[in-house]
């Protein structure tokens, strides 16, 4: 069953890679347009140490920013769900903020902090992850099954008990949906914010450096490294979700 479910994506993936390789070789496509997968792979192996080093620098930025942004978003969502007007007002504001290219704040943050520290980058990650987590958690906190409300009323349960036993656990799946989105967005923000200047110790700076040296296979190899970092964070978020919400795996 599991093997069969894997078969289709594996076949498609291998076929796509082969087609890419053949296309590049037969069509004599210049590397600045599209390097061959084999060339990217070679570069990946050659630069593996650098990729790991810069990848951990970027990864650290994501981790710190993600944790900070998550805590902020959780607190804000709790406040917004507690005070009706605040929630009503903040939802459209946050939705509007979600439409903004927050990443463009990077140069400003470089000014506000030192451009030689990692703080601006982490602040960007925190800002970017704030929105999906806030919006999802707020939705979860507000969506309460009316039967659960009546049940707790019939127990004359205190508001605190209601929050602890119904609202918070009910919002957990929504929070984790937000966290999953945020984990990917955080990696993107951490890598891309390096394009806006500032400290050059992460994957993003290596991608721009390689591209401006016309070492395109190398640039792609670092992109592959960034993809691996993205997958790592996504998988971690997924794992956390699985561990924290075991009941969702259990549907028959």
């Amino acid at each position, binding site marked *: 069953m599991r093997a069969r*479910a894997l078969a*289709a*994506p594996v*076949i*498609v*993936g291998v076929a796509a890679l082969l087609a890419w390789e053949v296309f590049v070789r037969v069509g004599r496509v210049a590397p*600045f*347009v599209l390097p061959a997968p084999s060339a990217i792979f070679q570069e990946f192996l050659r630069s593996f140490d650098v990729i790991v080093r810069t990848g951990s620098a970027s990864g650290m930025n994501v981790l710190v920013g993600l944790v900070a942004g998550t805590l902020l978003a959780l607190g804000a969502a709790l406040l917004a769900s507690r005070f009706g*007007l605040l929630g*009503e*007002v*903040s939802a*459209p*504001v946050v939705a*509007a903020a*979600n*439409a*903004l*290219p*927050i*990443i*463009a*704040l990077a*140069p*400003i*943050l*470089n*000014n*506000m*902090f*030192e451009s030689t*520290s990692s*703080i601006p980058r982490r602040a960007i990650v925190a800002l970017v992850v704030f929105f999906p987590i806030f919006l999802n958690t707020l939705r979860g906190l507000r969506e309460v099954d009316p039967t659960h409300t009546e049940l707790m009323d019939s127990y004359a349960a205190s508001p605190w008990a209601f929050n602890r036993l119904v609202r918070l656990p009910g919002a957990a799946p929504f929070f984790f949906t937000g966290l999953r989105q945020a*984990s*990917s967005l955080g*990696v*993107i923000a951490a*890598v*891309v914010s390096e*394009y*806006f*200047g500032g400290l050059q110790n992460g994957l*993003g700076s290596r*991608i*721009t450096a*390689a*591209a*401006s040296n*016309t070492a*395109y296979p190398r*640039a*792609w190899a670092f*992109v592959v490294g*960034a*993809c691996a*970092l*993205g*997958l790592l*964070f*996504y998988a971690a978020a997924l794992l956390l979700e699985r561990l924290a919400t075991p009941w969702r795996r259990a549907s028959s």
Partner: protein
Amino acid sequence: MRRALGSLALAALAAGAWELYKALAPDEGVSVAGVRFLPRSDDQAMPHLWTVLARLGQPELRGGAPIWEVLLSACLTTLGIVAVGLLAGVVVGGLLAVLMQRFGFAERGLLPYVVLSQTVPLVALAPAIAGWGGAIMPQWGTVSVIAAYLAFFPVAVGLLRGLQSPTPEALELMDSYSASWWATLVKLRLPASLPYLFPALKLAGAAAVVGAVVGEISTGTRGGIGRLVIEYSREATTDPAKVYTAMLGAALLGLTVTGLLTLAQRLAARGATP
């Protein structure tokens, strides 16, 4: 009305917090063990909001056009790039969705990659495809490609969900008419997917804006708002308010795109219910 007033109040609150922080916090921010945790608050890092607003009316360079004009024309340029990227993303995403709905193998084979494509920072490719500009397409085209890449995913996933949303009863009804796959698509699946399409389009629009801004910066494309952000930020030491005006432009662009898509949604809804 209450919401609009509340939103304004919240914006005013944020502006107040900005000025309050500026007034109270030390100019050099707060550093602990050599790491600055709270940002600088001097005029260079955090100019007064009125300085930023006033800067909008002053010329970009000595004797040039006022900044708001420059910003508007940059926004329009980027809006065009976003539109092309969004259109391409919608076409690609739509085709993928129909393909995945039609063929189970395509769904099983492609959907994991479609989802995967969002968990990885492929937008980081932007500098790597900068070389396409001038070689196989105009330079702004590469930016559109990046915008399209970010925009296709919400459309593909949202539309696929929409195409799969008709109930088994409705599908059996079409079967009982021995309707072709195409007729079922046009008469049942596509109309049923509209409620899924517009939220997806709004996500795609916001993503395309981010893609365009990042794309302009990393490919060095001139004329757009993303480029202004990076150009003005280089003048931050001599003209700190300038980069903030560019931020306002970027925000305007994001809101415009979402606003236009919301408008389209309203119009479509009105068309559907005479």
